């Protein structure tokens, strides 16, 4: 019995090791590829050389000012998005929960739209900092609304529905604004609202890194109550989880993560749903201590390759990131729903 137990544990641990090794290799490969490939392709072997001071100034600028920050940002935001999705799914006990579904992204979009039409439209200047702040404010406003509702709504499923409704309201308001806006004013909005990892600078990377690192640390620290949530709220409460507090903590964490993504890259769909699902499948476990890092890496991989596809397939035309993630992610979700009925 005991022997058997340790055996199966060993087997499980071996499985974990394999998955993590694959993920890390994929991240490294993706990182190298997305640095090397582009309108000006740089041989992977030369990357270190250029960074060390070799190569032309143009090459070095492309590398340091465009590709490297973009690559870093993709890893950070992709990971953040996946973890955010994982948290929401655990929290709602529903595998299709995600920042996009819950209206968090829509909230951000509404705010960005409003800002573009008022501040930016009047001054005629489009500042990315303002957009980022607006997106952030929008995400947090939507999240705040949901958290506020959670006081009155006892059940997670109803809360999920409430989130979806908030998403609809935000989208309707956005449409309303767009209807009465001039085309020029909303050109930027259209670009932003499809999501893109392009145009990242080191400043943004640093800001995102700080937010993501802080949120991730907190998430890992909360892995024990998150695990308890797996058995549902009632059981979690009976085991001593301060459900009301962790509800707020979890939703704040996940919206912080997704707000960060939405602010810097626009709403990116499906990563938050598809990646945790794929990770669960391959790890065959839902232990938060394993799932959180795996989701982070998985999200990074998913986004790195989606971004590569977006950039490369129709180059020099760059596709929106959501176009790619949706095309890859949606079938995954459909598959998931079909297979779920065991």
């Amino acid at each position, binding site marked *: 019995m005991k022997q058997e137990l340790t055996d199966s544990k060993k087997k499980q641990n071996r499985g974990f090791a394999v998955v993590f090794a694959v993920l890390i290799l994929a991240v490294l490969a993706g990182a190298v590829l997305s640095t090397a490939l582009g309108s000006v392709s740089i041989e992977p072997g030369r990357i270190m050389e250029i960074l060390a001071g070799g190569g032309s100034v143009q090459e070095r600028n492309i590398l340091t000012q465009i590709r490297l920050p973009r690559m870093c940002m993709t890893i950070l935001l992709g990971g953040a998005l996946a973890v955010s999705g994982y948290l929401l799914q655990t929290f709602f006990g529903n595998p299709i929960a995600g920042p996009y579904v819950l209206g968090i992204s829509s909230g951000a979009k509404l705010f960005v739209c409003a800002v573009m039409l008022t501040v930016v439209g009047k001054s005629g200047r489009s500042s990315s900092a303002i957009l980022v702040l607006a997106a952030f404010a929008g995400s947090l406003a939507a999240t705040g609304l949901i958290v506020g509702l959670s006081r009155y709504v006892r059940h997670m499923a109803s809360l999920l529905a409430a989130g979806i409704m908030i998403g609809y309201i935000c989208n309707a308001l956005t449409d309303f604004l767009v209807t009465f806006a001039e085309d020029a004013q909303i050109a930027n909005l259209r670009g932003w609202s499809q999501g893109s990892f392009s145009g990242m600078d080191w400043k943004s990377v640093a800001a995102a890194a700080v937010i993501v690192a802080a949120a991730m640390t907190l998430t890992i620290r909360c*892995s*024990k109550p998150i*695990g308890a949530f*797996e058995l549902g709220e009632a059981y979690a*409460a*009976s*085991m001593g989880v301060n459900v009301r507090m962790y509800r707020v903590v979890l939703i704040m964490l996940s919206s912080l993560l997704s707000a960060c993504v939405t602010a810097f890259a626009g709403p990116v769909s499906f990563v938050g749903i598809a990646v945790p699902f794929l990770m669960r499948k391959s790890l*065959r476990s*839902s232990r938060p201590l394993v799932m959180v890092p795996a989701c982070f890496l998985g999200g990074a991989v998913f986004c790195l390759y989606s971004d590569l596809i977006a950039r490369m397939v129709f180059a020099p035309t760059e596709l929106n990131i959501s176009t790619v993630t949706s095309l890859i992610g949606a079938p995954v979700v459909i598959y998931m729903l079909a297979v779920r009925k065991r």
Partner: protein
Amino acid sequence: MERFLHLHGLSVGYPTRKVLENIELEIEKGEILTLIGPNGAGKSTLLKSISGQLPLLAGSVMMQGQDLAKCDAKERARKMAVVLTEAIRPEYMTCREVCAAGRYPYTGRMGILRREDEDAVDRAMARMKVEDLAERDFGAISDGQKQRVLVARALAQETPVLLMDEPTSYLDIRYRTELMETLRGLAAEGKTILMSLHEIDLALEVSDRLLCVKEGGEVFCGTPQEVLTGERIRDLFDMPAGMYEKLFKEKAGQAALTQQDHTFFANRSCKYFPCHKTEDTDNFNCLFCYCPLYGMGPDCGGHFRYTKKGVKDCTGCLVPHKRENYPLIMEKLRARNRSGQTDAALENHGDPGKKETPDISEILTTVNSAEPLADCIRGITPPDAEIARLVRDDLDNLAMPPGSLGKIETTAVRMAAITGRRKPRAERRRIVVLCADNGLVEEGIGSAPQEVTAAQAVNMTRGLTGMSSIAGYRGDQVQVADIGIATDYHCDKVLPLNVRKGTANIVKGPAMTRDEAERAIRIGIGLAEQASRDNIDIVGVGEMGIGNTTTSAAVISVLTKRTAEDVTGLGGGITEDAFRHKVECVRRAVTVNSPDPEDPVDVLAKVGGLDLAAMCGVFLGCARYRIPVVIDGLISAAAALCAVRLCPDCRLYMFPSHESAEKGYRIAMEAVGIEPWFKLDMRLGEGSGCTMAFGVMEAACAVLDRMATFEKAGIDDSYLDKLRQDVTARGEIQTGSLHDRK
């Protein structure tokens, strides 16, 4: 008093709809309480409210005096585990991981399982027999298996309280039964279990109590018997005519049968169950070992019925033996004693004390006669040595190795010598119980309030006490005499021989005057005379009197010149402090009164009691009227010692019974010079040991009366001659102390 789990004024439900209101319930540790009731009655709501899932609308859930609402989540999780009806769908969790989740309140910050956590999980899984499922995915097992795993999870939480909502709903009949057995085992280990069940028969079987929850908020809590016999199930579920009868009539009948063994003191919900094992004398009182309300019929507050062997089916008692019920019991008792009601139920069966309306005129004649006590005593002569010799020869001719019946033989010889019959009889046996109160109860040494003396005296005439129920069973007569009961009572079967209403406090002065003591002794002699007139073959001497172990200790201490510590026993199981107090009382009584050890009457009058004096009289009287008399326990032994000191020949009429657990007993009996026959760890008093001794004496008579001789059996006994001589010689030595006068 602080109960284990206390639902106090609980109102549960939802903000818009109250489901159950004002529930008041005390739950004992190790109790299984099952909620039954129709769908939608609020069972789950109540469980959820107790577990804290639903906020209480009013009231509180107290656990060992602590309000659970004020506990933090983790603390609460260590007190209470739950099994819910809600299905859970964790993804990719093995059954073992689900169970391990129960360790949440114990693990550290990151939830890593320690060795002890793993062990707890193993234990829980083994208990629910789900070890085989350990590595299976929780989502891939059957609902029944899930349910067992979830119970295992709750067990892994290792809480003193377990709350389960419909834990059997998916289980097949085997696992259902197994779960119930497991629960019983857990309860025996002290786990308190609250659950709801739909299977009424399971609930009736497994639960200590059932909580019937009905729509509209009616709640009834009772034992399975009460629930069954009250036909509550029919009302609870609004069963159409005929359905209840079809389903439960038979069960109800069985329940009534099993109730035969259900006595007041087998009340599992009693804090002191099982009785007599408590050291907590502050909260426990011997009063309840003689429930004074037994005789009250329906007025005691509960339900029971009389049988020849006493009270049966005592259920729903409003006054279980708890300290806080004292005032109520006492009030009821006084009310009854005043009104002197006789209840019809009692008249329906013949009890031993009922036969004759006692006639005390002849006793009073003896008592009031001019004959000085000393003359009475002088009239006592030793048993007939000639008969003793003849009977010993008879015994030797019986078809057995000489002396092989041991003490039965010596008993037979002595009984013959006492009664002057070669074939003594033991057909009419009587236990004379002398009841009196002692003033020293005001020192607080008594194990029960003074009223109990009167109550028990009355109960003894009804065959309801420990001794009288045994006597009633055996067919021994019980004669109860009031020699000095302090409180008022009404019962015309107790002989009204009251000398005074309780003695004075011996710690402060003499118990009574010498005249009163002599009068009590004369009454005792009168009772023996009456026994002689009634052709009684054997008399046993019993007593009832709160505080009389202390007076007995004082008497023994003076007469044997031992210290108070030597002779004072624990009495009715009192604490160390109370014991020291008792020793102190004995010592002070002796110092204050300084009785003359050479004058037993003086000792009885100063530090004794009316019961002791009268018992001493019975011993003297039995010797005078040549009736074998049996010494019971400590008090009886003290009285016997007085009698022997007054008249040494008395000893030859006395027979021992059991060895009392009281310390003073052995010292007194050594001084009397008689060894007890049995050791039964009895210390009830009343004369309960006498009934046992009667059995031995009946056996002795039966041997002389019925056993075949060698002649009759056609056995040549010459081979035994040598042996016979040896044994006879040895027998003289062994029983010398009792035969030296022959």
